[in-house]
């Protein structure tokens, strides 16, 4: 089976003045299509750097990142941007919606960036909004929505163009327990119903428990891969 993502000996060194600060020291990981992976680890262990490299927002110092057969590390900046447009969906802790646009406007913008056209697929948009329980919020701007609703709009925006991988960076970090639960349920539903591959960074053990697999990172290494307690066995 071909993996949707494969990182091989991924290394990243930041230069702070004359100092070299290693963030990744040879992270190797393989994620299969439709897998729901949680990445855990202490602050500074390289989780976010890993996510940004996988999302094509950073170029690693060395190593390889292959997404659906395309080697991200051999690409130019423009090619990485194009791959991100085609294959990656991002969800952030701080939602990162456009405050001047409505929920639907945020989705349309993502569709327009993806397709390059004004004419889009309203049926798909409505379907995603319905799945995420946002049918009656389409004309609301982010500030008119609760934190949970904003994060659901952000998830809708991330999956509207059917990305190969959904990258979520602490998606429940700014939410209370109830809203966290709703958002995690939605992500679980996307994974189960649409086989959406999800890679989620979290500090929250309960959130990680929803994943098929938990990757633990320490000091820039992937140190452990385990199936969380209570997870359904036998997933790819």
């Amino acid at each position, binding site marked *: 089976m071909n993996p949707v993502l494969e990182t091989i000996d991924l290394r990243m060194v930041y230069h702070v003045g004359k100092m070299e600060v290693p963030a990744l020291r040879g992270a190797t990981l393989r994620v299969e299509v439709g897998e729901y992976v949680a990445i855990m680890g202490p602050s500074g262990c390289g989780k976010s750097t890993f996510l940004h490299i996988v999302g094509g*927002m950073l170029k690693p110092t060395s190593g390889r990142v292959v997404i659906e057969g395309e080697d991200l590390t051999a690409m130019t900046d*423009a090619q990485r941007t194009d*791959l*991100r*447009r085609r294959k990656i969906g991002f969800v952030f802790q701080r939602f990162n919606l*456009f405050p*001047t646009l409505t929920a639907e406007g945020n989705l*349309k*913008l993502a569709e327009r960036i993806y397709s390059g056209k004004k004419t889009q697929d309203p049926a798909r948009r409505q379907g995603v909004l319905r799945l995420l329980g946002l049918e009656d919020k389409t004309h609301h701007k982010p500030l008119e929505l609760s934190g949970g609703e904003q994060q659901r709009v952000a998830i809708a*925006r991330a999956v509207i163009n059917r990305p190969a991988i959904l990258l979520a960076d602490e998606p429940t970090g700014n939410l209370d327990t109830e809203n966290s639960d709703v958002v995690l349920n939605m992500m679980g539903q996307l994974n189960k119903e649409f086989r959406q591959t999800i890679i989620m960074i979290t500090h929250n053990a309960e959130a990680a428990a929803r994943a098929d697999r938990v990757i633990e990172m320490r000091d820039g290494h992937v140190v452990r891969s385990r199936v969380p307690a209570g997870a359904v066995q036998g997933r790819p």
Partner: protein
Amino acid sequence: MDSLIAANIGQRPLRTAISVIGVALGVILVTLFVGLARGMMHDAARRQSNVDAEVRFLPGGNVALAGNPLMLSARYADAILHGVQPTADDPDLEPKPPIYGVAATSAVGEYVQNSVAGIGFEMVDGLDYASFINTTHLTLAKGRGLGDGLAPDTEYEAIVDRYYADLGKDIDGKPVRIGSKITVLAHEFTVAGIYEPAVLARVKIPLRTMQQLLGGPENCTFVMVKCERPELADQVVEQLRRYYPGNRVILTNEIPALYSQGLAPVEIFLKVVIGLGLIISVLVILLAMYTTIIERTREIGILKSLGASKRFIVMIIEKEAALISAMGVTLGFAVALLGKLWLEANTRLIVELEPKWLLIAALIGVLGGIIGAIYPAMRAANLDPVEAISYD
């Protein structure tokens, strides 16, 4: 509001308004200054050429509005018509024949004074009325013509054209009528008649009075020469150049072109105004869009996380700048139009809003905006996506 560009513009209405006004200022500057300069130039040239006399005889030098306006002996008018013969007072005078083909001549003084309305300037003619009407098709709509300026009751009287009468005010601020008092050359004159069509200056006074007031006795600014038949004009010009060298002889129909040449400095001024308009538009949009980019760094990071290309980001910023500029151009045109209407209603200035210059003003506004947005747009497009999305 689903359009990011429209939403961004609406997000900061005050800054948008200031940017729009900034662009509009450049457009107003170009539109009004160019319109005013060309309007006044064309109007003056039109009135200069709107006479029957085919030939104009001037002192040597430039026809431009400068120096003492009464530099030519008024005796040339008589000499051209009747010729010159030695006299007892001047037995050495070189005899010259009458110029063949000349039907009438008239000496005219022309003076530029500050506009009584307070803005701009206006011309005043000094006429020998009796000879002047033989060289033009001037007719009196109301009142009577000018006297010779010798009799005390004709010394300080004036005739004005219909435009002046319709839009002008007398010294009491009332509409100009026969008998109204108007200020000419810092003196009070009584309106004796209203004439049409507009020929040369809008206000005419006796040449003798002008000579006394300006200290140029026996002098005029030019002599108008009416030919017996229009086709004799070239022959008359040739004779005048031969018999009176050192003076300038031009055909009346060349005057509009001469005005354009004589007012070359105005064209340079207009280019400076256009340059200033462009610089204002560029700077206003550069500042506004640069501030916008700083403020929206995080949003640019979001666009990058969504896979927006550099081109997409540049286009969003350029479109926003172009939209603001277009709003500025529209506002600028509206204000310029109101300015034109106000100036023409309250002064004797004429503003010509020619399509060519309106197009240039619009291009300056929009191009200035687009050029001004290039640096902020490139800066936004080259932001590091991770730093941008983490920006607070």
